[in-house]
């Protein structure tokens, strides 16, 4: 491994000025991607600037939604009760990312900035309408996460800029979200395909949702949908690994948004999602299979989101 100097700034300003003054510098958080890349000679920075000792990158703010600092490790995020309750898709991803050892060092900011098509937290943040907060020379700016991913490994930020946090809006309680990571084994694997969904129902449907729950219909949700004309106020569907970047399947979303949820609209959404996907054949999986799985996972995440939305109304 190539030698580098390691810097430990205590503030964002210090980090930024180090980056500006040093030749061939790179920020590092958990290091689970950066160090691997250096070892594999994919990059060879002369200076690594650690972001781990900057307290402002570890904030958790719980008013009008949730703000989470970029340097929080996944294992810490798992402990935030609000994520588990209101942002289930993100919680799902946190439980499945890497291994416990990785979750104990890797940060959410790193996962997003590395911008791998398989990044576990990417699809959840996409369906949760996250805003990326970025600090740079010109101050702080916000970018919707959908505009932040540009391609494999590339994001909409200057190299000197630092992602400081993610802001998640607060959703009405008749909202549910879910993330499913499809892998060959139960742990320690990258996603072969992944999908996240969020469904927000209309406020006036709350009593209907309560009826649905008490009918026990949730156990066979897809079959029961026809008995409960639920209106989808907002739908989000995001897919991972089946395109150069994690992306929102917006055509699929529009099959549901502003419509009643039933077998037909659900099927249309899944098929549209599969059409929007551009999977490739790789050693990790074949394209035809990945496309098929987009349908399966889209359906499963939507149904799981619906189930969670219903349960929130109990």
């Amino acid at each position, binding site marked *: 491994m190539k030698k580098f100097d390691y810097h430990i700034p205590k503030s964002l300003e210090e980090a930024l000025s180090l980056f500006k003054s040093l030749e061939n510098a790179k920020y590092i958080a958990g290091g689970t991607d950066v160090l691997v890349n250096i070892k594999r000679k994919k990059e060879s920075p002369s200076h690594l600037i650690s972001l781990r000792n900057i307290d402002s990158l570890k904030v958790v703010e719980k008013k009008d939604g949730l703000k989470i600092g970029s340097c929080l490790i996944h294992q810490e995020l798992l402990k935030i009760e609000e994520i588990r309750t209101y942002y289930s898709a993100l919680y799902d991803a946190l439980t499945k990312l890497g291994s416990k050892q990785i979750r104990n060092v890797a940060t959410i900011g790193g996962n997003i900035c590395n911008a791998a098509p398989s990044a576990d937290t990417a699809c959840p943040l996409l369906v949760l309408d996250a805003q990326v907060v970025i600090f740079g020379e010109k101050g702080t700016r916000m970018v919707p996460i959908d505009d932040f991913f540009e391609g494999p490994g590339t994001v909409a930020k200057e190299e000197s800029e630092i992602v400081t946090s993610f802001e998640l809006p607060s959703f009405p309680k008749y909202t549910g979200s879910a993330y499913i990571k*499809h892998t*060959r*084994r*139960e*742990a*320690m*694997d990258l996603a*072969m395909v992944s999908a996240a969904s969020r469904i927000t129902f209309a406020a006036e449907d709350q009593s209907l949702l309560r009826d649905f729950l008490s009918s026990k219909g949730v156990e066979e949700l897809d079959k029961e949908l026809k008995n409960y004309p639920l209106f989808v106020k907002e739908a989000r569907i995001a897919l991972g690994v089946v395109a150069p970047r994690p992306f929102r399947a917006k055509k699929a979303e529009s099959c549901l948004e502003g419509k009643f949820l039933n077998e037909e609209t659900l099927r249309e959404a899944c098929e549209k999602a599969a059409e929007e996907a551009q999977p490739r054949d790789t*050693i*990790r*999986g*074949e394209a035809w*299979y990945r496309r*098929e*799985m987009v349908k*399966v996972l889209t359906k499963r995440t939507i149904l799981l989101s619906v189930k969670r939305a219903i349960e929130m109304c109990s």
Partner: protein
Amino acid sequence: MPISTQIDKIDAYDKVLGKAKYASDFYMEGMLVGALLRSTRPHAHIKRIDVSKAYSLEGVVRIIQAKDIPGENSFGIIRKDQPLLCDKKVRFIGDPILIVLAVTEKVAKEALRLIEVEYEDIEPILTPSDSERSPILIHESGNLLTHKKVIKGNVEKGFSESDIIVENTYITTWLDHAYIETESGFGYMDGNGRIVIYSSTQNVHYKRKEISRILALPEEKIRVVQATTGGGFGGKLDMTIEGYVALSVYLTGKPILIRYSREESFLVSTKRHPLYIHYTTGAKKNGTLCAVKVSIIGDTGPYASYGETVCLRAAIHATGPYEVENVYVDSKMFYTNNPISGAMRGFGVPQIAFAHETQMDILAESLNLDPLYIRMKNGLKRGSKTATSQILEESVGYLETLERIKPFWLERKKGKDRGFGLGSMFYGMGNTGITNPSWAELKLSSDGKVVLYTGVCDIGQGSDTVLAQIVCETLGIDVSKIEIVRADTDYTKDAGSTSASRQTYISGKAAYEAALKLRSFLEREGFYSGKKLKDIFEKYKDMGMPVFDGFFDPPTTKLDPETSSGKPYATYAFATHMTEVAVDSSTGYVKVLKVHAAHDVGKAINIQNVKGQIYGGIAMGIGFALMEEFVPGKTKSFNTYYIPTSLDMPEVDVFIVESEEPTGPFGAKGVGEPALIPSAASIANAIYDATGVRIFELPCDMEKLKLLLERKRERG
């Protein structure tokens, strides 16, 4: 009672405390580190090698080529067809060409990039069928490594008497051993000019023989010691780093360390043989097997390694644990320019078990018989005649393994997308139809302990503990009273390899024999009437402490060259697994939920070790059945080679059957390979039970099963 009771593995504490010394932990002042330049071509003549740029790199000390080898530039467990360093021709991607010795591993690896090799490509042969037909020869002797037959009765007559004939083709692929410790070795020259090697190995005496040939030195000038070894599964039976370390020590006089990275290990370690099995079974309406005809074609890669063993062992075990009157097995191994196939837990039997167990289930279904019943009806028992016409006289616990599973089989309740499958096996203990002896020695030490000198390599399977238990049980002493000197060619006699599930049975018996001699000595000396071991030692120390040795070579016979008739093994282990799976029919994902595993081990010397082997075998079987696949040229590391994790493990209930083997120590046989063999077969049968889809090719990964499920749905 030291045997059959819960006892901690005696090597466990050193390992968890980090005290155990693996080969890579060795260091000596002035040590050089070696790295190997490997072929980037599957098949090519070497036209030119230019090392001048590499020599100019600071820190490079020596570059060793084929021409520097003082003795024979070849090795191989059976056939010496593998060059230590290639000089004229390379036969697979990864074939070694030269060794760079440098002051650090980093410099050595950097130097590799500065070496230029000019190749003249030869068309590579990538399948056994191309190998059979092609005029291009991988070795001058031809592309067929070996051809074996097992013949009993008249197979055509058997088919003519059959009411039903089932015929299918089964395919398996390359698997990696995936041991936790990659190949590693350290060596130096001692004060007397002898070469000492510490390596991660399954056999020290064989390694010494090969080094002696390569260096043209008498064996007395070489000492091979087993360093603590992190797994083997057959992959450390062939020479790995030993020859390179020894040659480097010989040429430089310096201490040398050579170790493989995980990527290098994946590239060059031997793999499980891919087998193409065409299997035809004939049976009566009542389920009685009349005839079995099998054709096995194997890909042995560019060098023989254990290809001959796998070819013959797969053929001998082709019927499975069933008595069949008429058998004809034709088994061939071809050279190719793929990775080297070699020994891997079961020597071809896990592959053939997948075939014979699927055949049994298909037969049962076609005849409307219960899968357990048809196994019971045909199962080997005392007095049965195997495919090699061996009469089984003792220790045939197969039917009992079925009996132990039976209550759970009969009570099984199938949920949606769930299924149950059976898998059975038999497995011959020790090498096939050849002598494979072992020696052990016992002495008393000055501090009043018994010292066992054994050549057995404990690679994690627990032979140290088991041998200690056998000796202590025989002597009536506590396990704390024994010390072990293990696998060191200077101090221990040849115990043969840690392979073929043979060490508990064969070396255990040798240790037992030695212990019997020591016991009668101790009786005479009054140990059992209260005299202390220390005092007995004191009495003899001046006149020389006697050594008590034990020897055992299982009674086998040479096999008939045409029919393979004879007694290839003195005894067999038997097992049955019942596996429950859940199948996600939308994705093709299979989760193994529960395994009931019944194993006839003769006698469980150490119950925890027996269970450990079975758990590990099941884990490996899940990999074989569902996810493991080495793709030559593509699989580089664990990044794309999937092995099951602890979360993929099912709940396992072990049932130990003890049909004692009279020639074994306390009746013991072995379990190392049997633990794995029925696992994949039972999973494949369970998938059928859950989905109605038959699996003929492993691994049955998600894509493959999804495709099969879709096809079935289309057919309606």
